[in-house]
């Protein structure tokens, strides 16, 4: 309305009172978007500068952890350095030009150990996170939607949930010697439950909405209802959970190492490194042994978290271009 109205009784602007005809093309333009769903998601995501920064950070970290052993002048993470002057192990050496992050209490180079540990922890975290997501969504969707399965799976869930994970982990660690595959297997066995429950709760909330009733009346098969009606509505919330799953898996690994069920100490991992640092944290000069692994761990987990959140926000159709 570009005409300015001084007084209502002054010239009535005729154009204000013309009938608005129905124009089909105008009507489409209101809800029309030039981009497909995922393209819109990508565009919204790239507008978020912090998330983009974290994404680059993760890519840089990932690439660095992979190429780090190939760089010149890197020491082995398990090699114990002997100081030439005293002939003894170079323990607790402060960070300097030769050892960028210093050495730990038995003389191993902390820089190399941290990157090796990051490789291990990331591998574990990603594998467990992906597995949790796939199994959790499949079982959770069936559980929430199909009423006849609801009872049975709820019973199974209740039983599995209440068996302390620790018992299963101790047993598995005893049967298969402690190692990386054992840890991944054990964490996968116990980890998918919470994702499944979460998906089930979300589906219960929308299960009986009118559009689902309509689909059922039309005779749509269950698989299509789940994949076309329910899951797209939940994409943003599921993405949020998946984003938490990877740092969560890393956190579980720290916990397991803390209680002694994790990897053996000859395989460096972020959990092991933090525990070693914990032992010396009260001595201010040795605190670097805790700070460096904690820093790397925080950078990784925070970045994954931010990326996941930003992606979840971007996947929400309400934010789309």
């Amino acid at each position, binding site marked *: 309305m570009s005409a300015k109205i001084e007084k209502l009784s002054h010239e009535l602007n005729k154009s204000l009172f013309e009938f608005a005809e129905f124009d089909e093309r105008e009507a489409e333009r209101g809800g029309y978007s030039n981009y497909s769903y995922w393209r819109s998601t990508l565009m919204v995501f790239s507008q978020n500068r912090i998330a983009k920064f974290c994404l680059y950070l993760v890519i840089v970290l990932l690439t660095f952890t992979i190429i780090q052993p190939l760089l010149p002048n890197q020491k082995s993470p398990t090699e114990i350095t002997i100081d030439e002057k005293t002939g003894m192990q170079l323990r607790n050496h402060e960070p300097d030009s030769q050892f960028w992050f210093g050495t730990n209490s038995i003389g191993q180079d902390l820089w190399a150990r941290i990157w090796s540990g990051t490789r291990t922890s990331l591998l574990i975290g990603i594998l467990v996170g992906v597995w949790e997501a796939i199994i959790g969504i499949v079982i959770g969707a069936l559980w929430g939607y199909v009423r006849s399965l609801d009872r049975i799976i709820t019973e199974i869930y209740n039983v599995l949930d209440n068996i302390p994970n620790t018992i299963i982990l101790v047993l598995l660690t005893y049967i298969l010697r402690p190692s990386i595959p054992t840890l991944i297997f054990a964490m996968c066995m116990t980890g998918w439950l919470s994702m499944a429950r979460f998906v089930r709760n979300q589906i219960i909330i929308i299960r009986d909405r009118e559009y689902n009733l309509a689909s059922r009346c039309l005779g749509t098969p269950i698989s299509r209802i789940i994949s076309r009606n329910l899951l797209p509505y939940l994409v943003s919330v599921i993405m949020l959970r998946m984003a938490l799953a990877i740092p969560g898996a890393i*956190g579980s690994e720290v916990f397991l190492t803390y209680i002694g069920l994790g990897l053996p100490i000859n395989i460096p991992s972020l959990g092991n490194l933090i525990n070693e640092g914990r032992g010396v944290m009260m001595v201010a000069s040795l605190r670097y042994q805790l700070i460096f692994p904690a820093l790397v761990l925080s950078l990784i987990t925070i970045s994954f*978290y931010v990326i996941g959140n930003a992606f979840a926000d971007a996947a929400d159709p309400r934010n789309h271009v």
Partner: protein
Amino acid sequence: MVQYVLKRLFQSILTLIVVITIVFLLMRLMPEEGYFGTNYEKLDQAQREAILQSMGLRDPLNVQIKNFYSQLLKGDLGKSIIYRPKVEISSILKTKIPYSLKFGLAALTMSLLLGIPLGITMALNKNRIWDKLGTGYIVFISAVPAAVYYLFLQIYVTSILKLPILFNLDKPLSWILPAVSMSLGGIASYAMWMRRYMVDELNKDYVKLARAKGLRNSRIMINHVLRNAFVPMIQYLPSAILYTIAGSIYIESLYSIPGMGGLLVDAIQRQDNTLVQALVLIYSSIGIFGLFLGDILMAILDPRIKLKRGGSR
């Protein structure tokens, strides 16, 4: 509704029995060396057999199960066999539970009182300063494993604020830091979910209609938005309250609090079967009934959710 509640109750008890039996069997899969700790080599075969016999581990399985359940039905949780030999489990728990309970409830209350208003503020001031600060806090607390930031809190806060490092009954100041540390995660979690659900609700059409109709903003918030946003969160509240007795294993070991935190892990590693079974019984009951109560609360609050027969397929 009453019928549904009774049915769920019965199912819960059944589940409990299944869980206990499975744990019972799993514990008996543990290696026999584990029962003796470092004494395994010092005792010869006959002595080892005698000890296992006294623990009741040599009886056939059905006899063991029968003994266990008949003892349980009399209300007797049994005696610990390795952790504190021959001591009644109920007395062990009686000394430990109050500590975990006090810290847990204090932390939970703080989480709710600080977290939910923070979440609401963040949702209302979306993308302004409170939202950004709050999001930064939530991201940090949620991403970094609790073990890590608890350590740094202990190192730096105790030196800056001159608080005692280890928990001590005689020093009331030593209560503060563990409880606050425990509440941080809860604050972040409640704030995050509250903000997310509220933002979802605020974008819905009925809110726009209410505004167009001219309702006061506060009325829209309280009567409509908050009520709908609370529904998904209510589910987890009963479990959270009940689980406070489980204690936090990190906090309790960091600050030397004699609570329930490390007890389960310790018992499993030392293979103290009776203690493990008693603890699993308690924790499972809490878990199962918490889930049950949460579902009921959710159904009461939101009439759109039908848990029993209704709808089709």
